[in-house]
Structure formats: C-alpha cells, structure tokens
C-alpha cells in the first residue's frame, strides 16, 4: 500500500465524513418552504408592549394578533377598511362605545381559548406606567376596556373622533393573561416570556440564538388558515450592506428595505430576486432650533426670524438633491410627512427653490456680506450655524454636506457636527443644537406623528426645535376631528401649507421603500406600514421549492 502524506489522509477523511452527512430534506407539497429575512436589528424582547423596535413589530405580526388591522389602503379613518383578526365582528354601542366579538375559534398556542379577559388584561398592561410601554400615549383617548362576557370586549372612549377604531385595534397585540398575570409589571421587559413567547398568531416561536437568528414555525391549526410558508427565520446582521449581500448571494430570501439606489441596482441584477417597491414611512428634514442653542427660554438669534428660515428654505434645491442622492427611491415631501400617509398631496403649496429671492430676503433683514469674506453678517455676527447629524446614517451625513454647499452659495457658513446617535439625541433633547438633519417614521395616522413633532404637545419630546403656531395647531385639531376622509384631507392640506410657510424645517426627502424578495415566492403582498403583516399569505409553489424549503428537523 503506498504511503500517503498526512495532509492527503486528512482531506480524504474530511470528504468521506462530509459525504456521510447529507442534508436532511424531504418536505414536498404546498405547505413546505422557508423564508429567511436578512434583518439589520435584533429585538430586545418579543413581548409586544415592551418595545417599539421595528423587528419586534415584524415578528409580533406572526406571533400575536390584533383585534383587527388596517387594510392595504392604510386608511385609518372609520372602520370600513379594517380587516378582522381576533375579532370576528364589531359594532358601535352609542357614540363612545365599541364592542368587539371575538372569534370563538381563536386559541393560544398552549390550547387555551383567547377571551375578552385577555383583551381587558392587554389594555391594562399597555396603559400601566410600570410596564413603560411606548404605545401608552397612543391609547390615552380610550377610557376603559372591559369584558361583557368571555367572548365580548367593550371599549369606551373619552371623546368621539374619526380614528377611534384605529386607536382601539392598531397599537395593541392581545396578550395571554393566563401566562402573564403572575409577572410583576415592572419586570415585563426582562420577563422570560419575552424570549420564549406563546402567541395566538399564524406562527409559533421555536428558537432564538442571540445575535444570530430567530426561528418561527407555522401553526398548522391557526384558526384563520394554515400559513403556506412553513418556517420563518430572522437572520440578524448588524450591517445593512452585508444584509443586502446575503440576499444577493442567495443566502437569505428577503431584505425589506434596500435603502440606496446602488443596492437596488445590485438586487435587480441578481437573477433569483424580484423587486417590490412600496410606500415608505419615513421623511427627513433639516430642523431649525427656534430657541437659543442650550437655552430654551430665549429665542434663537437666527432661526427665530421666520423670514430668515424661509430664505434658507428657498436656498435649497430639494428636487435636485433627491434626484442626485436617491434617484427613484425618494421624493420631495410636500410637508412633514412620509408617502405612507393618505394626506400626501403634491398640490400642497410649498416654498419655491429661488436663491435670488432668498438673497433678497436676507439682504432686507440686514444679513449682508459687509466685510467681503463671502459670509453674510449682521452687527458683526456672521450668518453661521452648525448642522448636527448622527454618524449612523450615511444618507443624512451626505445630505449635510450637500446642504453645506447650497448654503455656502448664498453666503451662509455651516459646520457639520457628526456625532454618535446617543450624543445627538442628548443634544436634541436638551436643545443644544442649531440645526439637525432628522428622520421621522410615521404610523399610518397623520394625527399622532405630526402632533408629536410639530405642536406644543411635543415640547420635551420630539418637537426638538420647539416650533409653535396657534393657527397650525387649531387646523391640526380640526383635521384630527374631521368626520370624513375628504374633509380631513382638506384640513390637513391647509395645515401643511401653514407649516410650509413658517418653515420650521426644510423637508428634504421621503424615502420610497424597495424590497428584494426571492422569486420563488408567490402571492407576495406587502402592506406599506408593515411589510411582514401579510407574510401568512405568501406561498411557494411546490415546483419552485429549493433545498432549504424541503428541510425537515
């Protein structure tokens, strides 16, 4: 027998060992299939009221049902566009009382029925300050939730308004009272249930490998129909580019937001992927601090002047910026709104791009280049300010530099402060900034987001620049209370024109989302406010199954 070198022997051993370890597979038919989502964040917990984290929401869609949910239109006014989930039907019992009748087939995954006691328990938990749920403020107009009988839950409201139904169903995922009642409310964030939940949704929790992946499996007994995709896996990848590469390299099936035009082009070039554009829920703006930097009791020497803010807004060519940075992935918003909102209307009046007019306004207000250094000044003070931007956002940093160039063209000097996001947030919260490139995410209702960011209700919260206009707030209140969708749209248009004229910020871009999904998936429905909301309807035709779809464990 010839003598082999040790390395050769090792290689042969490895090949023999691998050959003996064939992949376990065999599932065939309509209920096979695995979906791997390349997620860029990991949830801190899976207990829905404990976190507003996007991934908690995505996974929550599969584990915990709401009473009903918005439809593809994302209309939040009235109840006609809502789809029943846990609630089989509902009715109004007077102007302030809403009655839900639960589907008697609904079961927790431990076999217990879902009851009105669970609904009551859920409301009490979401509104308990000890739980500290970020959804609590959104439920403030619901006075109480009680159980009439085991399958009937009654919601009572403080006041009548068009989005009563939306508030009742959208923010809360119903929780199992029998499993959570014993957990002290101030320990919910750390409860073991949050890492090993038992739900009532189309998928069951299987496992969670920290910083690696999380696996769910279809509940074949789900009362609204067995989900066709058998297994869902969230693969946690902290870097967006790597997450995109995983999808392009066919090592994941879905990346729900590609974010940059370059990523979209690369995904388009991958033969196995299909591209799905959908309305985005984020807009970005340069927010002016209307109060003095670091002292909210004094007006800002530059931005307290409405005309100066208007001039700065007119100096920015928003359309060109969007075209050069985002291409088709962004639009210039007609106000502080994302394209998700139904109030988006290109007819809303906005300040034009007009550098000559901007220069005239600044001249008229005494901001001229007196010393010939290229920078406007007044009473010896240069027209100069800082732009605060978090290092975490490549796009916003890029925008800060582009804005710097555009301001320089009309004699305004800016310095960019790129800081870590926790430092940025601390500065924003304490009012220690001049301007900042900020992004806001909207839920489908314009009421909550706009109120929190652009009215007095947001002082100390998300209205970092402390913008206030009594007329704007009056119209917003009217819009929120409008009885019909048409009336609401008209009022929102008026409100947006008011804020645009005030220019408390420059509304730079609204992102359009683009998802990349493996082409073997069929019936891909993406609801703009929550891409994962309808995953339970996606399917893979049996003739398109690949290796990872067939695997049995």
């Amino acid at each position, binding site marked *: 027998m010839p003598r082999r070198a040790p390395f050769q022997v090792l290689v042969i051993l490895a090949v023999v060992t691998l050959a003996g370890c064939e992949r376990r597979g065999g599932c065939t038919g309509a209920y096979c299939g695995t979906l791997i989502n390349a997620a860029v964040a990991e949830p801190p917990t899976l207990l829905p009221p404990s976190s507003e984290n996007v991934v908690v929401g995505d996974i929550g869609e599969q584990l915990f049902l709401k009473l009903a949910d918005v439809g593809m239109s994302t209309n939040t006014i009235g109840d006609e566009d809502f789809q029943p989930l846990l609630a089989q039907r509902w009715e109004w019992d007077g102007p302030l009382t809403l009655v839900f009748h639960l589907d008697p087939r609904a079961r927790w995954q431990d076999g217990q029925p879902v009851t009105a006691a669970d609904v009551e328990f859920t409301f009490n938990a979401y509104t308990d300050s000890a739980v500290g749920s*970020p959804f609590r403020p959104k439920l403030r107009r619901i006075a109480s939730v009680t159980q009439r009988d085991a399958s009937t839950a009654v919601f009572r409201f403080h006041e009548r308004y068009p989005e009563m139904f939306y508030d009742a169903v959208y923010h809360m995922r119903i929780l199992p009272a029998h499993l959570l009642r014993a957990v002290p409310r101030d320990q919910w964030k750390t409860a073991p249930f949050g890492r090993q939940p038992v739900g009532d949704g189309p998928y069951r929790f299987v496992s969670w490998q920290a910083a690696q992946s999380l696996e769910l499996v279809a509940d074949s007994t789900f009362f609204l129909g067995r989900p066709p995709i058998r297994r869902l896996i969230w693969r946690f990848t902290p870097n967006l580019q*790597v997450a995109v590469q*995983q999808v392009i390299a*066919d090592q994941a099936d879905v990346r729900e937001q590609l974010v940059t035009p370059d990523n979209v082009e690369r995904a388009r070039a991958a033969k196995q992927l299909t591209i799905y554009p959908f309305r985005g829920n984020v807009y970005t703006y340069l927010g002016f601090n209307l109060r003095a930097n670091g002292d909210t009791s004094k007006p800002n020497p530059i931005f307290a002047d409405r005309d100066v803010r208007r001039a700065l807004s007119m100096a920015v060519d928003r359309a060109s910026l969007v075209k050069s940075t985002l291409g088709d992935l962004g639009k210039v918003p007609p106000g502080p709104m994302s394209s998700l909102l139904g109030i988006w209307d290109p007819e809303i009046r906005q300040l034009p791009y007009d550098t000559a007019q901007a220069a005239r306004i600044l001249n008229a207000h005494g901001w001229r280049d007196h010393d010939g250094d290229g920078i406007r000044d007044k009473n010896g003070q240069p027209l100069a300010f800082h732009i605060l931007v978090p290092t975490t956002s490549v796009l916003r940093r890029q925008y800060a530099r582009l804005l710097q160039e555009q301001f320089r063209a009309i004699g305004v000097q800016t310095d960019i402060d790129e800081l870590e996001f926790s430092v940025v947030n601390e500065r924003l919260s304490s009012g220690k900034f001049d301007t900042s490139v900020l992004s806001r995410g909207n839920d489908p209702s314009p009421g909550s987001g706009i109120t929190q960011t652009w009215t007095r209700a947001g002082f100390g*919260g998300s209205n970092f620049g402390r913008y206030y206009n009594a007329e704007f707030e009056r119209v917003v209140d009217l819009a929120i209370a409008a009885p019909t969708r048409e009336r609401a749209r008209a009022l929102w248009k008026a409100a947006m024109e008011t804020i645009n004229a005030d220019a408390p910020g420059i509304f730079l871009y609204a992102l359009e989302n683009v998802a990349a999904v493996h082409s073997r998936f069929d019936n891909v429905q993406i609801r703009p406010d929550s891409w994962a909301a309808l995953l339970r309807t996606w399917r893979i035709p049996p003739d398109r199954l690949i290796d990872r779809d067939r695997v049995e464990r």
Partner: protein
Amino acid sequence: MTAVGGMWLVRRLVASVAIIVAVVTFVFILIHAAPGKPCAGQPGEAADPVVCEQLIRQFALDRPLYEQYWRYLVALAHGDFGYSFSLHRPVRDALAETIPFTLQLAGAALLLDFVLGLGLGIYQAGRVNRLPDVIIGNATLFIYSLPTFWLALLLLLVFGEKLGWFPVGGPNDPIFCPVIDSAYCLFDRLWHLVLPAATLGLVGAAGTARFQRAAMLEVASQDYVRTARAKGVPERRVVLRHQLRNALLSFITRFGLAFPFLLTGAVLIETIFAWPGMGRLAFDAILARDYALVTATALIASVVVVAGNLLADILLGIADPRLRVRGGGELENVTA
C-alpha cells in the same frame, strides 16, 4: 521553578490584577462620563421620559458615581457582572454566549497569523533579496497596510457575493445547522469562519512574516550559525535548529502583542461579518451606553491581554536560557 522564579510570577500576577482593576476603573469612569444616555432610543426619536426615569431608578444610575462604582466592585467580587439593560438579561449570560465565538475567531486568526507568517518569514530569510523574497516582501507590506474593514468588505464582495464560495456573514447556516450537532455542521462552522478569520489572520500574518524575516536574518550572521554551516550541517537543519530556534524570541514577543490586536480587530470584524462574538457585543453596548456590559467586556478583554503577555514572558524565559530572573523580579538578559 526556582524560588526567585516563583516570586517573579507572584509579583507579575499581582501587577496583572492591578492593571485589570485600573482598566475596569478607567472604563467605568469613562463610559459614565461619556455624553449620551442609556435610554437614548433611535436617532431623532425622543426617548420616553417615563421609561427613561424607570430605567435610571431601576439600575441606580441616579446614585453618585463612587457609589455606583462601589456597588459594581462588590457585585463583581461575588461573580456578578450586573444586568444589561439593552439586552434585558444578565451580562454573564450574554458573555457566556459570545466569548466562545470570539475565541473561535481569534484562535483561527492566530493560527493563520503565526503558521503563515512564520512560514513566509522563514522562506524569505532563506532567499534574501531574491525574487521570491522581493515579491513576498511587497505583498506582505501591501496587506499589512490595508485597513482591516476594507479588506473585510473586499473579501465579502469577491468571495461571498460575486463568487459565492463562502457565506456572507453569520456563524452558521440557520436552516441546516442552527447548532453544531454533526460533523457536517462542524464543517459548516469552519466554512463560515474562513472569511472573518482570513481577514484578521492575513493582516497579522503579513506583520509576523516581516518580523520573522528580520529576526532570522539577524540570527543568520551569528557565529554559531556560521560554525554550523562550516561543520557541514545540512542547510535545513541549520535553518530549523540553529537559526529558527534563536529567532523565536521575537516570535514569542509578537505572540504577546497579538492579543490586543486580535481583540480590537474582532470588534470590527464581528460587526461586519455578523459574527456573534464579544467584540460585536461590546460595540453595541457602547452605542447603547449599556454601562454594565461595556465594563464587563473591557474586563474580559483586559484579562485576556494581560494573561497573553504574561504567558509570552514565561515562554521567553523558557525559550532563552540567557534570560534569567533576578531578585528584583524583572526578566534580565544576562548576556547584555
């Protein structure tokens, strides 16, 4: 071990503990003094003041810093690393899950670093100023000067996305091998380890090769090497027995220095390759201002670095008979 050697070791151990305590203290103060709050939320999103207040009270973050530090030390003395408020779990659990991954990555990178670096250094030393030496010398200089993150992204793009030879991030195949329970899954882990370990290891190997080449050349001019050649000892034996053995001192020194490089490199590499190790954990903890987690990862890192250097010093003493311990507890070159 002699009494003097034992005394030296005790002194080094005491000094090591002092260094670790100093590092922990420094990191504890620094992270608490850094701007930013532990409940900052997402960029541009206002943190809920109620939630923030709850968190601050729950973890006694409103207490004076000295009190928090004392509490931390007392807990640490009881083996309690504290609670991670960003992960909602004990720090000990998070560390127990991530340290093995960092050890796998650092171990593989260290192996590649020294095997490849040593081999190249020896090979170059035997062919000084000839074409292979010039080519390898320039290649190692090129790799050594590459930013690690750039090399990582390049390897991912070429070997992961374009060629599809290796997985793009992650420690395993989440479908077939969520845990290592078969030989197939063991190979799957090694397959996933290739790109991150190569990124860390190649840069290290380039440095090691240059060190080793220089050390070999320094030894080559020594009398005992010339004597061995004059006696007719085969070249292979001269290189391996006489030259390499004496040139190993610089190699051992570099071994001690490799630990800080590997641990700092791991922070970047683990984040880019989605490798669930301690480096990525530390990075996320710093961003979240997760005080307990940041301090604990700094503690572990300092223990590893100090232990690595101690080990290197011991190995130096063993490898070189000229190095002896004097009464004062310092390693001394008795021939100098």
